[in-house]
């Protein structure tokens, strides 16, 4: 039985290499995010944002951009027999889940490295919100990746798979969004950075991450059955 660490590294490496070579999801996600910012500028008729409005625009955009990437997460496995390979290989099947979650976290982080500074340049008065924002982004990414991988793995085997991911995933990540925006809003206030209930919301994010990561890990075996 191949140790899970080796299998994990192998699957993750394969995914990252494939993405770097073909560059399918990442540029699309980043471009989508920046264009969304422009649409929000005109849709809301504002040139600067603060507080809850800023948090909302940022998180809504990140979420929709993430859905683009999540849609494509398992397409390669589906089309090139990756699922069968995992079934046959002498590894713990849940490794596919953890590897995909890790890959998705890396994609989301890459997206944020591009989109968040641009958001700050477009709309924020100061970059003071960014350092604490990194923590929020990280925790939210873990939760988003766990829920997204779970749903994506089921949607890929269905008809209308592009429709299914946003349909089911969006209500599922509402608590995540509530916590993320609530933590971000005080960071972006006009008066200056505030940490109002920051710790509490981080804990809620952590709880969400824990529950969905464990859940996904536990049920993934059943999803891969023939």
């Amino acid at each position: 039985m191949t140790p899970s660490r080796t299998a994990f590294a192998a699957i993750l490496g394969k995914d990252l290499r494939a993405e770097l070579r073909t560059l399918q999801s990442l540029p699309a996600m980043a471009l989508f995010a920046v264009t969304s910012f422009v649409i929000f500028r005109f849709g809301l008729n504002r040139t600067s944002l603060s507080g809850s409005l800023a948090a909302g625009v940022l998180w809504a955009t990140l979420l929709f951009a993430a859905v683009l990437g999540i849609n494509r997460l398992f397409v390669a496995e589906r089309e090139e027999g990756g699922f069968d390979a995992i079934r046959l290989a002498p590894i713990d099947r849940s490794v596919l889940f953890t590897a995909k979650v890790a890959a998705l976290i890396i994609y989301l982080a890459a997206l944020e490295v591009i989109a968040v500074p641009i958001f700050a340049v477009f709309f924020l008065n100061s970059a003071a919100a960014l350092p604490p924002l990194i923590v929020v982004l990280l925790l939210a990414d873990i939760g988003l990746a766990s829920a997204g991988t779970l749903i994506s793995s089921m949607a890929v085997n269905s008809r209308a798979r592009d429709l299914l991911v946003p349909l089911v995933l969006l209500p599922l990540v509402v608590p995540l969004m509530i916590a993320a925006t609530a933590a971000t809003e005080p960071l972006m206030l006009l008066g200056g950075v505030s940490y109002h209930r920051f710790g509490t919301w981080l804990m809620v994010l952590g709880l969400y991450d824990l529950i969905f990561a464990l859940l996904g890990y536990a049920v993934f075996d059943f999803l891969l059955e023939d």
Partner: protein
Amino acid sequence: MGADPSMYGKGLRPLSIATPVAFAITLSLVFFYAPIEADQGFLQKIFYLHVPLAITALCGFIVGGIFAVLHLRRDDPRYDAYSYVSIHISVIYACGALLTGSIWAKGSWGHWWVWNEPTLVSFLIVFLLYATYYPFRYAIEDRQRQARYASVFAITAGAFVPLNFLAVRMSESLVHPRVFATAEGGLPGSMLLTFLCSIASMALLWTTLVKFELSAKSAQGQLKRLRRALDAPTGPPTSRIAPEVH
């Protein structure tokens, strides 16, 4: 691995007698015994309808999740049917909770919807999630896979419900007064009794409806079985998503 044929209809008789009796008692208590509340007046009586509907729906969703866990662990298709029907009835209850909540909001706040009432908002999100259960099932063609994925969905959604309530409740700014403030700060004894009776009635009704629907599905399944055994012409096509019960 045949199902015990008496399994679905059994217990339906005492349940269907107990349910209207419980409702008769509850409704009498609501309208003749429970005192008129000081703040909201007569309008508060909706509380005895809305909140039990909501609580029963939530418990129903969690029960659906538990059946889904059993389905995956024991690989018994019966549990998929139990899970499906539990979620089905709970979705109807959730609809009722949203409608009655909206009416209550209109009566006391003047708007058909209020965002600062956590129960109502959490409910909306839960309802939206479980509403996707049906297109989700429909999108997966292979029956066995459909059942398995649906169970994963039910488990995920079941875990989601308490998390969602926590997040929505916490997002409430303490400045806004809650619309349905009756639930806060302890109910007087007479109201508590009425409230508990109402929850019991709703739960009994839920169980009755679930058994009822399972029994109907079972009858359909037996009919199909008969048709096949006699090589009789097949009847009208059945649903693509509802699990078959035999």
